[in-house]
């Protein structure tokens, strides 16, 4: 195809055109003014010759040329944006909305065959190129996003350099995160303004499924241990499902035990949604998994969104510690002073200062500053409010603690921390052997043996003790050296999974050395057994003086920190490499902290009552740096991964996998929003069956060859101008104007 047009000669700047036009207009103006003042005949001749003279003079300056262009016609660019949110995995018409959307994208490519179609997927952020065949085969967690943010995708498109699309087609169910359902016409119009192109929409689903779901869960403020937290839960009902009253329950998923019911309520649905508020209190800090579920009525077609598992990062205002001691000693003094010196610890202490056998030489208890040991109150009503319990040399039988040991064991299983500190009345000597509490201690107790030994000894570090971050503070000050302790409790073998940090150099348990300091996991909690009553020697002794008594604080910082899962005292850090979506492959990233060496082992279990591991793997001497561990395809639920590097104590990481999560919380498509969006931008909203109705934008002409030739040579224009001026001069003379 050839196109022709007039243009100025090459090298003549546009400003020349304006200058010539201005001068010609002024000259013509003067001529007209002169002719108007003069009365009589012959004015027309003057005007014609003057005008011609000016025109030829202008042409001789501008030298007009004829420009010919040869070009081709190409299809307009059309961008098809396909929703890539996880929400599109919702079922629709026997398939998923995603299958329908990808099929629609394929159909659109055919419909716009005359145009240049660019297929892109959008989720959060800018849209990315999409290959339909690949997307249909194996969607991975990375392919799908939690939400569909069309606003960001369109804004990113508008800022791309190069050719602008002539039309945009959005394929979705319309339930965008942005633009929201409350966006007005002006906001929707704004989306297409920068692109200067119509936005057409194709609704992949138009009918709401019969579904009762948890639409949203909101909390106010930070989640702090022991402090009440309100969950505002919106329950929705759609597709004509009859919902009425729907029970709602919040449970905490815990390791090794049944989920703990935190709160429950009933949502009374008058319209298509209702809100219920549940007050919960999480007692333990760290990552806590809370499952919120509804009992959906019969006919619910999407059971996956009847349950959400939220991970709360629970912080502590202060660490609440219960310190109970059977008698006052220098060891009790040292521990109390350390606990009191730490402003982050809220200490509740009870020491037994008098026994029934003591003779206080008083006639009235009012002479004594003693209060009854509130054992029942402490170990029933108040027990869950403590983050850690320290039992120091206290006889469980004498002080009526024995009847509360099942509750104390449950407390540990449910996430509490326990430290049993040695002394004549600790462990077997305090009636703990064969008690429920024994099962949560990291060591077995030997009830039929002497409960303690009086021989002085210096404990020995185990390999785990040397590498455990929990003892780094002490080893940095004293290396492998420890003070002499006056006797030791009789402890049994370490339980499976427990770690011994100090052992007795002479006393034996079976073939191995007797543990002196051991750490263990028990259900959701942790426990520590310390079989000596003399760690105050790290605070006040000739030995302690070498480090100005700092080793005591270092030891207890580590023990309490480990008990409370302080990351500083873990050998590893675990995190999900990406979102964990049920039914899709998931993986964990494992980072070893400095000093953690050796083989890495990982065990994956479901949160809840004890069950066989879902996965066990061991990596022999892995290379330094982060490791990515494949977990395979997991079902929806809470999981606990325990990883260990070398001999160091294991690190636990709890996480949740959801099928749809927040993406599936509202299963209703929103074709109305798609229609409003199309209308605001001058586009068209259609269903999948109406794709053929979408207008195909006109093709573009692209120039391939251009030539330019002057209409006349410059001298011809000049000659014509001279002749015209001559004629004009002659006419003036005839009219007597010269």
């Amino acid at each position: 195809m050839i196109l022709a047009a007039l243009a100025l000669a090459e090298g003549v700047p546009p400003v020349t055109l304006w200058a010539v036009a201005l001068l010609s207009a002024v000259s013509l103006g003067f001529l007209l003014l002169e002719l108007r003042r003069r009365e009589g005949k012959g004015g027309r001749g003057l005007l014609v010759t003057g005008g011609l003279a000016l025109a030829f003079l202008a042409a001789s300056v501008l030298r007009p040329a004829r420009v010919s262009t040869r070009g081709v016609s190409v299809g307009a660019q059309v961008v098809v944006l396909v929703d890539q949110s996880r929400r599109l995995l919702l079922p629709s018409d026997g398939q998923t909305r995603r299958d329908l959307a990808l099929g629609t994208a394929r159909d659109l490519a055919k419909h716009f065959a005359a145009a240049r179609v660019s297929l892109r997927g959008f989720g959060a952020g800018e849209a990315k190129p999409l290959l339909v065949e690949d997307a249909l085969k194996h969607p991975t967690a990375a392919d799908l996003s939690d939400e569909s943010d069309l606003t960001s995708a369109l804004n990113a498109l508008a800022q791309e350099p190069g050719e602008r699309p002539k039309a945009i087609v959005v394929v979705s169910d319309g339930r965008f995160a942005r633009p929201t359902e409350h966006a007005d016409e002006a906001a929707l119009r704004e989306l297409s303004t920068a692109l200067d192109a119509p936005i057409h929409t194709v609704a992949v689903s138009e009918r709401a499924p019969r579904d009762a779901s948890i639409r949203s869960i909101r909390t106010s403020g930070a989640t702090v241990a022991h402090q009440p937290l309100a969950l505002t839960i919106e329950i929705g009902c759609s597709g004509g499902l009859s919902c009425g009253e729907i029970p709602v329950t919040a449970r905490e998923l815990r390791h090794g035990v049944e989920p703990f019911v935190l709160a429950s309520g009933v949502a009374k649905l008058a319209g298509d949604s209702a809100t219920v508020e549940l007050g919960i209190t999480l007692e333990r800090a760290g990552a806590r998994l809370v499952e919120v579920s509804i009992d959906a009525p019969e006919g619910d077609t999407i059971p996956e969104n009847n349950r959400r598992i939220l991970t709360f990062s629970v912080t502590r205002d202060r660490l609440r510690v219960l310190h109970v001691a059977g008698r006052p000693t220098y060891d009790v003094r040292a521990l109390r002073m350390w606990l009191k010196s730490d402003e982050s610890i809220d200490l509740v202490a009870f020491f037994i200062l008098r026994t029934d056998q003591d003779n206080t030489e008083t006639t009235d208890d009012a002479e004594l500053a003693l209060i009854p040991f509130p054992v029942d109150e402490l170990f029933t009503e108040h027990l869950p409010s403590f983050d850690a319990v320290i039992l120091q040399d206290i006889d469980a039988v004498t002080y009526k603690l024995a009847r509360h040991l099942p509750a104390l064991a449950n407390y540990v299983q449910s996430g509490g921390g326990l430290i049993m500190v040695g002394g004549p009345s600790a462990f077997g000597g305090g009636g703990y052997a064969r008690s429920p509490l024994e099962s949560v201690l990291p060591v077995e107790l030997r009830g039929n043996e002497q409960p303690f030994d009086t021989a002085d000894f210096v404990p020995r570090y185990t390999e785990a003790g040397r590498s455990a971050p929990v003892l780094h503070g002490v080893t940095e000050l004293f290396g492998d050296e420890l003070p002499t302790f006056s006797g030791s409790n009789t402890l049994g073998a370490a339980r499976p999974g427990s770690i011994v940090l100090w052992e007795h150099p002479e006393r034996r348990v079976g073939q191995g050395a007797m543990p002196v300091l051991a750490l263990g996991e028990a259900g959701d909690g942790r426990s520590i057994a310390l079989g000596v009553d003399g760690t105050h020697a790290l605070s006040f002794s000739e030995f302690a003086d070498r480090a100005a008594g700092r080793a005591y604080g270092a030891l207890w910082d580590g023990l309490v920190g480990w008990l409370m899962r302080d990351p500083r005292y873990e050998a590893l850090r675990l995190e999900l490499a990406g979102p964990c979506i049920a039914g899709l492959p998931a993986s964990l990233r494992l980072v070893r902290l400095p000093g953690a060496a050796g083989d890495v082992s990982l065990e994956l279990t479901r949160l809840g009552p004890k069950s066989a591991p879902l996965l066990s793997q061991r990596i022999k001497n892995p290379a330094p740096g982060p490791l990515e561990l494949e977990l395979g395809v997991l079902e929806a639920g809470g999981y606990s991964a325990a990883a260990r590097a070398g001999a160091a104590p294991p690190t636990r990481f709890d996480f949740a996998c959801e099928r749809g999560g927040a993406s599936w919380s509202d299963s209703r498509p929103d074709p109305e929003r798609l229609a409003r969006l199309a209308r605001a931008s001058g586009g068209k909203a259609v269903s999948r069956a109406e794709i053929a109705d979408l207008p195909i934008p006109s093709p573009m002409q692209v120039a391939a060859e251009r030539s330019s030739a002057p209409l006349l040579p410059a001298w011809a224009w000049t000659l014509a101008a001279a002749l015209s001026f001559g004629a004009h001069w002659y006419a003036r003379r005839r009219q007597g104007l010269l």
Partner: protein
Amino acid sequence: MSCRFTRRAALTLPLSLCTTRARAFGDGGAFNPRLLRAGNQAPLGVRSSGAGRWSWELVRRTSAPARLVPGEVAADQPALQAEPFAIWAGLADPGLLSAAEVRGLTRFLRLGGVLLVDDVNPAAGAFGSGARRELARVLPESAPVRLDPAHVLFKTFYIVDRPVGRVLGPAELTAIVRGKNTQVIFLQHDLLGALARSGEGFAFETEPGGLEQREHAIRLAVNIAMYVLCSDYKDDQVHAPFLMRRRARQKP
């Protein structure tokens, strides 16, 4: 050696068993009222038996374990740092402490030790003033202050209204307080004299006298021991309402 611990049995053990052997299990953290030797002080004589009686009374009246024969320790010996309590008692001015003694006491107090300064001749007051002078060299930044009557020392086990010893002495206690810890307690009551034994009875009569005064002196000793073992435990909020009610009953 393995054994079954009974605290009551400890009271009946021959004293000789407790003097030499390394501490038994459970005894490592027992209260030990060691007598401090510092300066050129004269021997305490029979008053030194008051330390053993202190332990005996503590074991008899409370659940706390104690060393029944406490022994002595010199200010310039590393053994001073072995335990967090010592009694510095004397009749006369102890004179200038050596540099090693000052260093030893400084380390003891910096580690958090508690020192009881007992002037056993309060009428003269020479030991008390000499000890204050020397402790000012040990802790130049900390001056003695009068303890509030509500101080935890008066309620660690017994509810005590005022300090007494062999003599009635001043109605208040003075002490050097570092941070939140009362570390040096000054007594002008001859507490060791009230506790000292001679044969089957007490070595000294109390002045102005009476069984009640000796009982109150023993109670003060028990409270000091409990302070050393439990620090400010009785200042915990949980005890406050009980103690307020009991004090109200005692003072109609």
